[in-house]
């Protein structure tokens, strides 16, 4: 009897096999932690690397001139970032006008209206759209879309903001539609039934119940897609030209019809141009990168804030 009690109590001590089990658990935990930590480490490294070179750049160029200047001509050491910022924002705004309505409408169709058959064709179609390399989009914008828009009577330059922006918009449609559709599909059927039970039509249920209930996810999809548009490079390098131009409020149509440049495209130009790695032109890339990072980071914060505000708990 005593022996038995002793055995029971000793069972609380770890045996050799159990010791190795605990050790294995520690290893699993460590490996998983390292993987999770990697992305944070990379992000911090990128920010530090950008910051170090950007600080050097700001040693050569006055930050005030950089952030308020309206002329970007690296050959003449004029580093005013505003034409590039407005170029980026213009592309983002036009692409949003293309992608948000079409993306949300597709999401509503896929989530609420489509038969299983229609879904099985349309969903892979949208996914293919997401898989097309951006260089192909750039080519299509330059060669076909501009011609097509000219056919509609628009007076466009060979390189122009409009074609590039529309193409960026087309590129991000799948992001809006697939994330929005996920959010709408997650709305419980009990809410749809409540709507139909009150004599609502399909359209009323979709727009009055499902979309509002999925709003936080839908907004998140906008922000993610627009962050993608802000960072898009290849399409704008190929189809929009390389001429930094301030957005002209008095002539918005002209601003769209002619060439322009975004921050990303100026960075490509800086890194590919034939200048030394110590030159301000080369270093400007890091200042631009940091600015771009700050903008997308702010958009992510905004997205989280919006999502938190609209989050609804439904059973």
């Amino acid at each position, binding site marked *: 009897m005593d022996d038995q009690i002793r055995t029971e109590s000793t069972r609380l001590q770890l045996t050799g096999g159990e010791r190795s089990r605990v050790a294995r658990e520690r290893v699993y935990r460590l490996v998983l932690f390292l993987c999770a930590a990697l992305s944070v480490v990379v992000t911090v490294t990128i920010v530090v690397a950008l910051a170090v070179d950007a600080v050097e750049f700001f040693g050569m160029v006055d930050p005030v001139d950089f952030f308020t200047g309206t002329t970007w001509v690296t050959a003449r050491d004029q580093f005013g970032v505003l034409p590039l910022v407005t170029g980026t924002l213009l592309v983002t705004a036009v692409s949003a006008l293309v992608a948000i309505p079409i993306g949300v409408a597709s999401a509503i169709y896929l989530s609420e209206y489509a*038969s299983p058959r229609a879904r099985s064709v349309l969903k892979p179609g949208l996914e293919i759209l997401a898989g097309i390399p951006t260089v192909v989009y750039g080519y299509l914008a330059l060669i076909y879309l501009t011609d097509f828009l000219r056919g509609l009577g628009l007076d466009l330059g060979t390189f122009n903001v409009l074609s590039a922006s529309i193409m960026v918009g087309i590129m991000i449609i799948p992001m809006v539609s697939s994330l929005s559709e996920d959010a709408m599909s997650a709305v419980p059927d009990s809410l*749809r*039934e*409540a*709507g139909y039970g009150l*004599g609502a039509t399909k359209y009323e249920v979709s727009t009055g119940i499902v979309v509002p209930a999925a709003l936080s996810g839908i907004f998140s999809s906008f922000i993610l897609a627009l962050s993608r548009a802000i960072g898009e490079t290849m399409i704008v390098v190929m189809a929009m030209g390389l001429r930094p131009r301030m957005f002209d409020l008095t002539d918005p149509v002209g601003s769209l019809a002619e060439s322009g440049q975004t921050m990303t495209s100026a960075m490509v130009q800086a890194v590919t141009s034939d200048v030394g790695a110590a030159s301000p032109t080369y270093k400007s890339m890091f200042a631009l990168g940091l600015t771009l990072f700050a903008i997308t980071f702010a958009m992510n914060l905004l997205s989280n804030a919006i999502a938190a505000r609209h989050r609804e708990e*439904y059973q």
Partner: protein
Amino acid sequence: MSSDGAGQGAVTGMADRSEPESRTDDDPERSGATDGAETVIESRDLDVFYGDEQALRGIDLTIPEHRVTALIGPSGCGKSTFLRSINRMNDLIDVARVEGDLLFRGKNVYDEDVDPVALRRKIGMVFQKPNPFPKSIRDNVAYGLEVQGKTDDIDERIHTALERAALIDEVEDRLDESGLDLSGGQQQRLCIARAIATDPEVLLMDEPASALDPVATSKVEDLVEELAQEYTVVIVTHNMQQAARISDKTAVFLTGGELVEAGDTNEIFENPEHDRVEDYITGKFG
């Protein structure tokens, strides 16, 4: 019952068939002659299929006006399916198929010229699990009024509906708070308020108290009895005591999607005709 006469009769061809045609031809046991009330809903040889599976078999049942009709039976017996076939909620299920007649005031609701949206505006529904919209309490009740275009005096209509649903005292000061912040029992009364705000003729209730605690349940039960003075109520319940307490007429569905017996609730509970029904209500199976 309704102060809003204009909204009635909107379903094509329904308005001119007010004559209760069913009272003579049914055998009294089945129709459950509930002291001469008019028949609002009548099913004749109604079959419902989900794909290859038959969920209801040849259901003949009449629902009397301004009474509470309880549909009882074990899980999977088809009582909810029957309820959902009345306002064509089964239309939302791709594989569902209906055969036979389901008459609402004499008009077969499965006729081609019947608009299910118009039908559902006359036949409100309350579901098993409280399902308020993620909107404010006010907007929850307003939703049905808005889609049905009954927006005149909307605040008054909302107030009246919440009053009838015995919820007004608890929410009067917080109509702008989310309906989801209410307790389960309050949410269900909110759903009832939402359903009656538009003044339907019939209220279908699919086990409305099954997710609620006993106190909330008894509140909902009281409410159902109240509502029957103005509405025709059809209520599905698992709970036989509940059926006995609140209903005037009871229909017993048993496994396989058959309606075994229907009639006056007291008759069914005190002196059922079929042994299977007696076994079920005395708890020998199910």
